[in-house]
């Protein structure tokens, strides 16, 4: 097991190097030399060159990349072109906000999706099933930023229940969490349902029923644990997405999370911030995925057996 974890953590290294290179390459192609947007209009060529050196933009893509990796290994993500602040510090400033939003979103989504999905599957083709599936489909089809706008329109402007943005207090997190959580809840409901339907057809449930296990326990004990596996997969994938920043919701609600940090930095051609934030996010995503895989093993002994092999 530990060897498996270690192996996974080692596999993280090439991925992080790859992410850093990818971002470097993309930002290198990007229109607009960052030097000229940082330097003022009156900059002389000498000043430009000096600035270029100071910003670490001299040299070829590969040279810069190697330099960056060297610093990265020392835990140094560089300093922002714009604010001159340490990227790591800025990232860590934003991370709690994103984690807060992500966690609440996931809790709400899971809390809604699993009971709904189970009910839908158990009462397949009933009114309850149809209703929750139609709702899930709508939730899945709604662009989340639009939902955010509608929520603002209704709950902030018309009813005045929640603030339209900002990050103070619990009330300000409610609407962003709903915005991000809706499509997630929809997705999870659908996954739970189909996974549950799959499991409900399995013979071992018949065995359980034949044993005299009550219907409630058949569902909650025997079926759910098996159905959880695909749900956990989706959960893992989506957690990364929420974690990486529900950029749109963060923009709509002025939520100072990691996603907005990256978008703003891309706008400003602030390469160290873009790269640093994405590398850190990738690391988090990978670690979350590893955790998800460990949860798998906990739920499914067959997978555990694979890991220990």
């Amino acid at each position: 097991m530990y060897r498996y974890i270690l192996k996974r953590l080692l596999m993280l290294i090439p991925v992080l190097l790859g992410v850093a290179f990818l971002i470097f390459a993309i930002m290198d192609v990007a229109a607009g030399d960052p030097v000229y947007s940082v330097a003022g209009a009156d900059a002389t060529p000498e000043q430009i060159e000096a600035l270029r050196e100071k910003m670490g933009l001299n040299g070829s893509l590969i040279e810069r990349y190697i330099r960056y990796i060297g610093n990265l290994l020392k835990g140094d993500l560089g300093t922002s072109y714009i604010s001159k602040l340490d990227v790591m510090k800025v990232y860590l400033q934003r991370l709690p906000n994103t984690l807060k939003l992500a966690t609440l979103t996931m809790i709400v989504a899971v809390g809604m999706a699993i009971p709904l999905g189970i009910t839908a599957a158990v009462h397949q083709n009933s009114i309850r099933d149809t209703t929750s599936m139609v709702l899930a489909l709508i939730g899945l089809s709604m662009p989340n930023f639009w939902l955010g706008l509608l929520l603002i329109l209704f709950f902030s402007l018309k009813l005045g229940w929640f603030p339209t943005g900002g990050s103070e207090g619990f009330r300000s997190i409610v609407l962003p969490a709903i915005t991000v959580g809706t499509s997630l809840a929809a997705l999870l409901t659908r996954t739970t349902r189909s996974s549950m339907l799959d499991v409900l057809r399995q013979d071992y449930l018949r065995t359980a029923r034949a044993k005299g296990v009550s219907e409630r326990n058949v569902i909650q004990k025997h079926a759910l644990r098996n159905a959880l596996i695909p749900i956990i997969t989706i959960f893992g994938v989506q957690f990364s997405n929420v974690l990486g920043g529900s950029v749109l919701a963060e923009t709509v609600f002025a939520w100072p999370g990691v996603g907005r940090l990256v978008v703003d930095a891309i706008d400003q051609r602030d390469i160290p911030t873009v790269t640093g934030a994405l590398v850190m996010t990738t690391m988090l995503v990978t670690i979350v995925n590893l955790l998800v895989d460990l949860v798998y093993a906990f739920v499914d002994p067959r997978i555990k057996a694979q890991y220990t092999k």
Partner: protein
Amino acid sequence: MTNQEANDLILDIKNLKVRYETQDGIVRAVNGIDLTLRKKRTLGLVGETGAGKTTTALAIMRLVPDPPGIVECDKLEISGQDILSLPENKLEHVRGNDISMIFQDPMTALNPVFTVGDQIAESLEIHEHLSSKDAKERAGDMLELVGIPRERANEYPHQFSGGMKQRVVIAIALACNPQLLLADEPTTALDVTIQAQVLELMNELKEKYDTSMIMITHDLGCVAEVCDEVAVMYAGRIVEEGTLEDVFNRTLHPYTEGLFNSLPNIKDRKAKLKPIKGLMPDPTNLPVGCSFAPRCNYVSDACLKAQPQLRSISQTHRVACTAYDNPEFHIERRIL
């Protein structure tokens, strides 16, 4: 039927009908069968795939999925207890306690995420209200009973072979010492050598616990080995029933004859196999007359007009075939 016999009755079914209402139409899986079974006896329920054997067993357990399954029955009693009118929570006390079932495929019959010990212990916890520690202990006993070392109770199904899994399934079914055991093709999924072992084990345990059993199978050899009585099913109906002797040696129904004829003959290896021609009728669209008529070698116009009813040929032996209106009629198969 004498009083004594009536008290002895473990299972009494009258006019059981099961249909599945699906999008493709109504599948009539079981079309009015009567079954009785006395204590310590074993009934072989024989027929090809799709004849309605498994559905019958599920109906007895009241486990026919609804929707789409709809069960209709005039009488369904286990040891004199009316199962038909029991509410779901009472049924849970009957299942696994009074009646158990062994399912066809041991590969899928066990829950992959629980240890086998837990799965055996579960029914003990439910029905005998044992503490989880005692139940574990008893589960170990049960494992040993079916020939598996008790240490393996903490292992998961994927760590067991097919035959071992089937033993676990048997252990689960017998854990609470049921009066009636429904075994749905318990050996089909297993290797031949394992099949014999499992059958022997079941025979042994049945004797030991005085359990009555319905053995569902299409394997006539298996029937010969375990059963006292035989009922042959075709398209949701019983076409012939009687003692093992009756059905094997005094075969009456053309379908039963067909079943025997399609077995390879060890004594005459040159003899050509004679499979029953054609396929089972579409259960959504059963013919008006005898369901077997389209495949029957002895078919007459009368067969196509009305459904034949079971008629008694001897005290124990009954058959549903219009041809026997003619007292001269006999089938080709001769028992040597």
